[in-house]
């Protein structure tokens, strides 16, 4: 089974380190950490499964791209990559805004953020499995429906030509 690849983007080295450490403890993920959105975007050709992205990215590099802009760029170049936004702001309007721009989830930084990040990875995995299953069921439904229709048409044609009786015989 392919390893889940994760990018973490945060200009706070402590936050970056702690989240990386925590996720590595949970499972054998492939994790790459970046301190700016620009560096993350340069590596999007690697098509990570998940990006944990800080909302504010300009505490070290003053004019670094902010998280929302990076989110939009990620969704443009890699729509299948799920992005989880991280922020110190416990504000519903900020959460709604990032979801509007395509984030999978929004996590407020703090002690519970690491557990929530772990849950987000699990939820993303479960959601993508459901999507795959739904696509498979859709295909199977179409195939069986088509097969049933073909059998029905064949029966009707054979009955019309008198090759099979309309009366099954047990009536």
């Amino acid at each position, binding site marked *: 089974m392919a390893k889940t690849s994760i990018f973490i983007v945060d200009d*706070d080295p*402590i936050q970056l*380190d702690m989240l990386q450490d925590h996720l590595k403890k949970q499972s054998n993920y492939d994790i790459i950490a970046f301190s700016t959105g620009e560096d993350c975007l340069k590596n999007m050709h690697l098509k990570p499964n998940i990006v944990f992205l800080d909302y504010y990215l300009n505490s070290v590099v003053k004019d670094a791209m902010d998280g929302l802009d990076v989110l939009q760029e990620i969704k443009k170049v890699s729509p299948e990559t799920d992005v989880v936004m991280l922020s110190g702001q416990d504000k519903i309007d900020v959460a709604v805004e990032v979801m509007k721009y395509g984030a999978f989830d929004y996590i407020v*930084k703090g*002690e519970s953020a690491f557990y929530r990040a772990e849950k987000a990875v699990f939820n993303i995995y479960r959601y993508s499995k459901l999507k795959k299953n739904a696509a498979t069921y859709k295909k199977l439904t179409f195939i069986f429906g088509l097969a049933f229709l073909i059998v029905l048409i064949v029966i009707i044609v054979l009955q019309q030509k008198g090759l099979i009786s309309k009366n099954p015989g047990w009536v």
Partner: protein
Amino acid sequence: MEKSTDLTFLKSFTGGDKAKMSKYINMVLNAGPTQIQLMQTHLQNKDWPQLRTAAHSLKPQMSYMGAKKAEEVIKAIENNAREQVNLENIPAQLTEFEHLFGQASEELKQEIQNF
């Protein structure tokens, strides 16, 4: 005297790994003075967005060290700088934060020595 830090979360997060705890504590101790200096510069320049940014990064760090009072003060600085309200309170708040950070630093250094 009542302690200003609480390493319960850090112990749980690191599984009691003293090397990891030392690593994170040292990262906070090293980053703190620089951020405080930056906040003072931004305050002098009345650069409220940058002051907010500097305060914002210290907030989770105080939380991880269990420095609740320091966390409250830095949150207040961040809010005031972001909303640009109660700006006249920020100098006193920054002084208070510096004092609380200093207190927390001493305790954390002691903790590392006890490991």
